[in-house]
């Protein structure tokens, strides 16, 4: 804090003072209005066609960056072949609205002629079809075609680890221009398309004037900003970010990873396809060279510079880089030449800074990654903060009333176990991690699983929750066989879990973490998220209310930190948040993997009470725990695992009496000594 008395006022600050007096919302609106006005009047002030044209090209790259931002920034999928979709869109329009294909005219084409997609051309002894697909129809179609290719290439590869994906997309980015080049009948190959038709609107053709393209580009940017922002603040966007933060945990919270990744990939590809249409319409030609690897890298640089996931950041970065390339470095070189002539320095007269633009890209990538990974404008947390009143109005402790989807004992057929595991086997290489384990967890009970390190406890949890598939055996929930289901379906059925080493979505807020936890029982899709449908808004409201309910379990431990980023929480609070996140999925049974690890005795007791009260609400709990006092106090039944085998089962007393248990914990030799 700077004390006002010691401050000297600069002119800049004096000018900024009225601005500061505005509220932050007003400030934002003011800036946004200024930017929009600036963007709209720019072609009117600057009458130089060259500048407007450069700006129109820049809009295309800004749109591309926004599209890739969904893939890389939100969903965390490093796509190094993004230019391929750009190419697909470009060639889709290029081929369907030029003379490239001109089959013989036949009656087959009549319906298309009626639709206005083709024209019948008869002149100079030719009787052929001329493709004249309207730009305005081609653009959404190109988006669909590119999205289709996105799915086609994404489907087999999106299951792979992120870094493999980078390489596969890089390969795809190489293949597409090669195919374009090697298929001259369709694309005119390396010679490039000739005579792609310019868009026209109400009979006015855009032709080669830059301004209409510029405004169209600006409109596209505005549309994409709108779509990206809405997506980002929705269930879909949160699921993407969850995948980016921790794929496995996202799956465990009910996010269908493959589906959502494909969605991100398809949306990103679609935007690139639409931009391709725009770009080729503006140039009226296209060659395969326009869509090579450097284009993909340039777009990536824009995202890295602007901030991954930051909608406004990538637009700003796209503008900066384009200006740098087409204006600033050229002009700077020009000034240096003038200066060089003035001082008679030969080297300065020859210098060409535009040559170093790629070097600058490389340096930007490295420096941003090392020193400012969040980018120029960090992705802001869109989630609205709670007011102080809202926070304090909630119960700090005591009565908890949470709507958990628990199963009342009466609803079940007698004798049905909540969770039943039979003859479960899992081996890794030559090591048997879980060996023919049988177990039952009764509804409404707390069962503890103990055993020395490496005895297969976590593996057992992984098998139950679908992180690993068992080699043999059967797992059933309330009598339904769930063996081998993917993790997101298992959450949907009612098994939620926490992790031994904490797998929170670190860069998301407390509230967002819990909202992701509710993924499996919410429905909003991408369309609903963009259109803000009634159902979407209602669901959003409801999930927020439910999140607050869940958090109230931990009193005011997490409530005041609702909008803090998860990685900034204390260790114990992170543990609590993970439990809250799991509860948000409305489980029937909760699997806790060492919930009190790293907590001090007081915190441990508090958590044990909270677990007990959850059971009081009818929730079944199955936990791995090392602290025997916790186990003894909570558990109705204890299971002991050693070398993957169940060696004991029963109440605390029964288990402690078993010599095998002692042996497992203290070692064979000691026990027999």
């Amino acid at each position: 804090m700077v004390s006002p008395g010691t401050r000297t006022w600069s002119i800049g600050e004096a000018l900024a003072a009225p601005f500061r007096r505005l509220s932050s919302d007003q400030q934002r609106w003011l800036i946004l209005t200024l930017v929009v006005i600036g963007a709209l009047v720019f072609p009117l002030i600057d009458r130089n066609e060259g500048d407007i044209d450069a700006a129109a090209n820049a809009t295309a790259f800004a749109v591309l960056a926004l599209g890739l931002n969904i893939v890389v920034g939100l969903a965390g999928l490093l796509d190094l072949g993004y230019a391929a979709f750009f190419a697909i869109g470009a060639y889709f329009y290029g081929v369907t609205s030029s003379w490239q294909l001109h089959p013989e005219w036949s009656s087959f084409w009549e319906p298309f002629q009626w639709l206005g997609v083709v024209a019948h051309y008869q002149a100079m002894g030719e009787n052929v079809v001329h493709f004249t697909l309207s730009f305005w129809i081609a653009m959404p179609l190109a988006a669909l075609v590119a999205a289709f290719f996105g799915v086609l290439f994404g489907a087999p590869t999106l299951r792979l680890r992120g870094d493999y994906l980078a390489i596969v997309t890089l390969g795809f980015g190489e293949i597409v221009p090669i195919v374009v080049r090697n298929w001259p009948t369709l694309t005119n190959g390396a010679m490039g398309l000739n005579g792609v038709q310019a868009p026209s609107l109400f009979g006015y053709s855009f032709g080669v004037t830059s301004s209409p393209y510029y405004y169209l580009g600006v409109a596209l940017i505005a549309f994409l900003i709108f779509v990206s922002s809405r997506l980002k603040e929705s269930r879909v966007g949160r699921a993407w970010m969850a995948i980016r933060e921790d794929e496995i945990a996202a799956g465990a919270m009910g996010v269908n990873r493959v589906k959502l990744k494909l969605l991100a990939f398809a949306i990103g590809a679609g935007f690139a396809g639409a931009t391709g249409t725009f770009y080729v319409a503006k140039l009226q030609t296209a060659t395969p060279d326009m869509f090579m690897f450097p284009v993909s890298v340039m777009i990536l640089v824009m995202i890295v510079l602007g901030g991954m996931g930051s909608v406004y950041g990538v637009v700003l970065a796209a503008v900066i880089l384009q200006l740098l390339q087409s204006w600033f470095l050229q002009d700077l070189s020009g000034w240096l030449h003038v200066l060089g002539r003035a001082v008679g320095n030969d080297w300065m007269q020859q210098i060409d800074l535009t040559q170093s633009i790629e070097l600058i890209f490389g340096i930007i990538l490295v420096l941003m990654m090392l020193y400012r990974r969040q980018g120029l404008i960090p992705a802001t947390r869109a989630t609205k903060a709670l007011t102080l009143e809202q926070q304090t109005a909630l119960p700090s402790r005591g009565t908890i009333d949470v709507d958990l989807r628990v199963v009342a004992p009466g609803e079940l057929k007698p004798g049905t176990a909540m969770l039943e595991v039979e003859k479960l086997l899992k081996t890794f290489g030559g090591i048997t991690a879980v060996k023919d384990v049988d177990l039952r967890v009764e509804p409404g009970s707390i069962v503890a699983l103990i055993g020395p390190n490496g005895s297969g406890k976590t593996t057992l949890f992984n098998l139950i929750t679908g992180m690993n598939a068992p080699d043999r055996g059967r797992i059933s929930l309330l009598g339904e066989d769930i063996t081998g289901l993917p993790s997101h379906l298992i959450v949907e059925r009612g098994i939620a879990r926490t992790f031994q080493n904490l797998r929170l979505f670190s860069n998301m807020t407390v509230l967002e973490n819990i909202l992701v936890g509710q993924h499996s029982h919410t429905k909003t899709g991408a369309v609903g998220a963009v259109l803000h449908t009634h159902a979407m808004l209602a669901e959003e409201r409801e999930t927020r209310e439910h999140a607050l309910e869940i958090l109230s379990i931990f009193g005011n431990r997490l409530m005041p930190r609702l909008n803090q980023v998860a990685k900034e929480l204390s260790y114990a609070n992170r543990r609590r948040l993970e439990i809250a996140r799991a509860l948000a999925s409305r489980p029937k049974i909760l699997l806790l993997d060492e919930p009190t690890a790293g907590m001090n005795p007081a915190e441990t007791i508090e958590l044990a009470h909270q677990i007990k009260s959850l059971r009081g609400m009818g929730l079944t709990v199955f936990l791995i725990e090392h602290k025997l006092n916790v186990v003894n106090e909570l558990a109705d039944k204890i299971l002991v695992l050693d070398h993957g085998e169940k060696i004991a089962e029963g109440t605390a007393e029964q288990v402690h009496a078993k010599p095998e248990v002692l042996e497992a914990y203290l070692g064979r030799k000691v026990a027999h000594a």
Partner: protein
Amino acid sequence: MTFQDVLIQQVINGVSLGAIYSLLALGFTMVYGIIELINFAHFNVFMVGSFIAMYILQALGLNGQNVILTGFSLVGVLVVALVGTMLLSGALGVLIERTALRPLRGVPGTAAMITTIGVSYILFNIVLLTIGADAFNFPNPMPTVRWGEAGVVLQLREVLVWVVAFLLMACLNYFVRRTKMGKAMQATAQDQEAARMMGVEVDRVVMITFFLGSALAGAAGLIFGLYYNYTNFAIGYTAGLRAFTAAVLGGIGNIPGAMLGGIIIGLIESLGGQLLEVRWTDVIIFSVLVLVLVFRPTGLFGRATAARS
């Protein structure tokens, strides 16, 4: 040439090409095995390596193909060039690791990979801006020796590529399997935390890994130059991508797998080009890559290290 001759000739071409890919693939696979990072900088460490080798040979008084050496002096020159190139390229690898990658150790996600793309761009453009876009006539003191004339031709330079690549791989294999540092590398690859607890200095292991991988890339740069009598600022991209594919094919993290993967990619390239068309080579190779990743993500020969939990 009978068709059989052509096939044999293409196998010779493919294996020579594959040997270069193998050396490059080793660098990818070792780094990936230890810190799970796809190192795009490796592409251009290879390119820089070929320039280092060219300057060393020029410093030894060789220019173009005018000076032909034989016997002891030939071996001497080649050994000096090889050792010098490997040391300097290795040092470049260590420099990259220390300055750009070590600060990002433990940062999740794609940050480190993006950094390596940046480093790759920097290396590429520094060479472009200082040395230029020209193609260079790589000095080669080897006499042109051909066995066979009308049919299958085997040349001395091909034999040299095979021998050097094989010796280097044998040394690497010995180092990784038999020496203490090699064992520390294997341990780190399997479980970094456990290795650290057992007293392995992980930072040092990572550094050595970068040194070895980059030194091999430098060696690949040298034999690339000797094989084609040519180098240029742009040689890294395609060769690097193919080599990476080779590493994936062989099971990334798997050292013998990378060697075999390189040879396989070389053969796919030469035989694929022969039987189909050269213009489709990249499509064939990347299709192989995608198919392998989809159906056998651990590569043809599996990961050498145990699966992690």
